[in-house]
């Protein structure tokens, strides 16, 4: 089931203007189509010169196992996973897959506390610095991540989230979002593991000076 959570503005870097984007909980055929057509075409026509090791690895058969395991879990546990999407200009600009149970905090503030695990956060290739010289929409990650923290509050998990960052995004999670960096995780292809603690979540959602009500 797909429901709209709200409308949020993304910034079009080329024009400098903000454009309204729909944030959705759940996906449908249109998102699938956008992913298969728009995203794939972009991936195929532009082989990233500075693609990260992890991404090159992802093309390996070995890493397809990640997806097959997820798939089995998703099908077998309808309660466990949730998908989100952002749409703007009639295209899917970003998607996020979160796991709502069975993930536990490593943070010293609340070790072993349940949290929302962001399994995937994927921005459309045309929005990524690592892919195109002039990425288009800015803010996809911010909106999706805010939605993840929101979900963590909704689920009574006090805003706690965890994720493994695709390298190239480490600075975003550490500096922009303000999450704790736990360093490279051997069990996850060396990707860095980040967490937002309950305290950090409170700070994250706090309106800053100059923000609207």
């Amino acid at each position: 089931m797909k429901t709209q959570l709200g409308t949020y503005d993304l910034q079009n870097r080329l024009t400098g203007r903000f454009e309204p984007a729909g944030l959705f909980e759940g996906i449908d055929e249109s998102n699938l189509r956008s992913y298969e057509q728009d995203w794939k075409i972009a991936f195929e026509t532009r082989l990233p010169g500075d693609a990260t090791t992890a991404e090159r690895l992802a093309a390996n058969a070995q890493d397809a196992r990640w997806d097959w395991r997820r798939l089995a879990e998703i099908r077998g546990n309808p309660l466990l996973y949730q998908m989100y999407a952002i749409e703007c200009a009639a295209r899917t600009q970003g998607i996020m897959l979160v796991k709502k149970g069975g993930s536990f905090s490593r943070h010293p503030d609340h070790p072993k506390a349940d949290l929302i695990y962001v399994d995937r956060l994927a921005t459309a290739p045309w929005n990524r610095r690592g892919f195109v010289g002039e990425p288009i929409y800015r803010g996809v990650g911010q909106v999706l991540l805010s939605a993840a923290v929101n979900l963590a509050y909704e689920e009574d998990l006090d805003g706690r989230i965890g994720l493994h960052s695709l390298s190239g995004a480490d600075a975003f999670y550490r500096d922009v979002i303000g999450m704790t960096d736990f360093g490279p995780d051997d069990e996850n292809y060396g990707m860095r593991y980040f967490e937002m603690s309950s305290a950090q979540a409170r700070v994250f959602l706090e309106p800053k000076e100059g923000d609207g009500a």
Partner: protein
Amino acid sequence: MADKKTMTLNLSEPEMAALETLCERKGMSKTTLLRQALRLYQSMDERLERGEKVFFEDPRSKEKAELMVL
């Protein structure tokens, strides 16, 4: 989110005590804890249905202990 349904749960005193202790330790309401427990249980059950086994592993000794299977 989808409509919620209400349920009454009957627990023995020790079971209730265990639930309350867990809730306090984890800082969660009873509903949240049980919801998380359900997700975990479903996850485990799904793997068992597929013929997998669920183990705990001691990270230091690498010893594996099979989770009790009812």
